[in-house]
């Protein structure tokens, strides 16, 4: 053994730590560096602007749109309240509240309808043989990736007064005069269910596909009937999928813009249209900003609820 060999052994301990720390640091730097461009774009064109929206809620509306740089709570005030132009009395903004109420009502209705239609569909796909399952899944995904506007058009075509549905119904003599479906709340609800249905089916499918059917067999073995098996065994086991699907349909429904605009015919506004209106004809940017933040908060609360429910599920397993 040469003397310098022993020397290296003496020093090795510090040499090792230094080498280790340096390589870890270099690796971390590389990782962060790779993320920087994407984060920069997102900060500029997604996250950052949201903060500006928050600032705008506290400014005064400009006379021709835009804002005047003057602190004001008028934007938030007008979300829920309105001031009479003549005598200045304050009352509840019932026009806004009715739009909130409609947004909630229609979103919940679409979510429930999508669940009622989507659950059997997801179950149907998940119980197909493995060879054809991907095809069925593909069929569900296709409408999801096709233009939302086009699908809304398609629904519009179907339920118009002279549309295919009414023509068929009259042709078969079921009705004499066309049922007025377009430009009603019903048409918005139907449209949202239609466009967001794949978002319900996909997470449900993911859950049902993982379901251990030996548990179902065990339930039948223990004298449960079909309905009992469905509600006591299958539904509780795929609950995470149900929650995920409902959240995924509820959130975009709440902020929907295109569907109510096309199928609501301008009279049945929803939250999304109300927001857009403030930046267009309404020329009240602070109110629009405050409404946006309100919508964002509701969405975040729903998401938080979702995260909490999935975490609890994991904690139960752990």
């Amino acid at each position, binding site marked *: 053994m040469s003397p310098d060999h022993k020397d290296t052994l003496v020093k090795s301990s510090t040499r090792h730590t230094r080498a280790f720390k340096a390589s870890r640091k270099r690796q971390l730097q*590389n990782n962060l560096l790779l993320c920087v461009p994407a984060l920069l774009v997102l900060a500029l064109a997604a996250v950052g602007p*949201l903060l*500006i929206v928050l600032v705008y809620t506290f400014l005064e509306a400009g006379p021709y749109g835009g804002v005047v740089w003057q602190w004001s709570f008028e934007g938030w005030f007008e979300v829920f309240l309105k001031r009479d132009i003549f005598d200045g009395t304050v009352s509840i903004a019932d026009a806004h509240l009715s739009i909130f109420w409609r947004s909630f009502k229609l979103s919940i209705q679409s979510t429930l309808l999508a669940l009622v239609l989507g659950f059997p569909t997801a179950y149907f796909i998940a119980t197909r043989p493995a060879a054809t399952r991907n095809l069925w899944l593909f069929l569900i995904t296709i*409408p999801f990736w096709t233009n939302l506007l086009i699908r809304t*058009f398609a629904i519009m075509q179907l339920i118009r007064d002279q549309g295919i549905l009414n023509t068929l119904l009259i042709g078969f003599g079921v009705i004499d005069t066309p049922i007025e479906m377009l430009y009603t709340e019903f048409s918005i609800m139907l449209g949202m269910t239609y466009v967001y249905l794949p978002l319900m089916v996909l997470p449900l499918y993911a859950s049902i596909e993982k379901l251990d059917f030996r548990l179902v067999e065990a339930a039948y073995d223990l004298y449960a009937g079909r309905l009992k098996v469905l509600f006591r065994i299958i539904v509780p086991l795929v609950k995470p999928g149900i929650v995920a699907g409902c959240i995924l349909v509820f959130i975009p429904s709440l902020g929907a813009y295109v569907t109510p605009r096309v199928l609501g015919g301008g009279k049945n506004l929803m939250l999304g249209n109300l927001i857009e209106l403030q930046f267009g004809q309404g020329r009240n*940017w602070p109110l629009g900003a405050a409404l946006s933040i309100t919508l964002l908060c509701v969405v975040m609360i729903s998401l938080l609820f979702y995260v909490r429910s999935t975490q609890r599920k994991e904690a139960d397993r752990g």
Partner: protein
Amino acid sequence: MSVLRNARKLIVARAIAGNRHFAVRYLPGFSTIAVLCFVLLYAPIVALVIYSFNSGTNIALWEGFSLHWYTVAWENELVQEVTFRSLIVASMAAVTSTMLATMAALGTTRTGDYRGRMLIYATINQPLMVPEIVTGVALLIFFAIVKAFTGYHGLAYLIAAHTAFCIPFAYLPIRARLEGMDSSLETAAQDLYATPVKTFWRITLPLMWPGILAGFMLAFVISLDDVVITELVKSAGQDTLPTYMLGQLRRGITPEVNAISSALLGISILLVSLFFVLRNR
């Protein structure tokens, strides 16, 4: 009464006996609803496509097959212009967002846990969580400020906005691909004398490629389909195909819009099918 009940029992028993297998997975009515659901999903689309080949002006009345409205749409200069703009925005946004997403995926996948990684995830997925209308409003306000400062009113705003909301769509398939990749392959390459740079070009990138392609196609489709954000962000005269179609709606649905929709539908389906083929490979 009891006779009737016994008869029913007998029928049920016979039915069960006749069914040689007890179908564990069967639930009554589910298949019917599922089929109904598929019909519901496709009937409007199919009707739309069929009526786009209608020769008449009235979109409810079938007057014979023709490609008339496709030619009308094709020769409409305004349609050509907005289609061209849509394609430019979509390709720019898809290319940029795919590149950024690929880098970000490399920086966040298989790296072990490090501080700030969850924050990066949240930032990348932010466009998926915030309602489109809110993002649109935010960009409208932000770009109004930038426009006032710079005086620039070009297409870059639209491209930047599309790039941002396409990033998570490009990121997800790339990350999924990377996570499914066996890291021992790269170790093996290094064992066989490939330097880290060589390993990336010869092993990592070729293996990631289907994911990158899938991410690109999703980003392209998402950008091509966007209505809400574009509607809010675009300057005057910057209509894309979807916002043009939305504008046309004020005059009611014309057969021409029908034809454009069907063509766009065809492109989307083609891209999504390609995406599926790539993902399953």
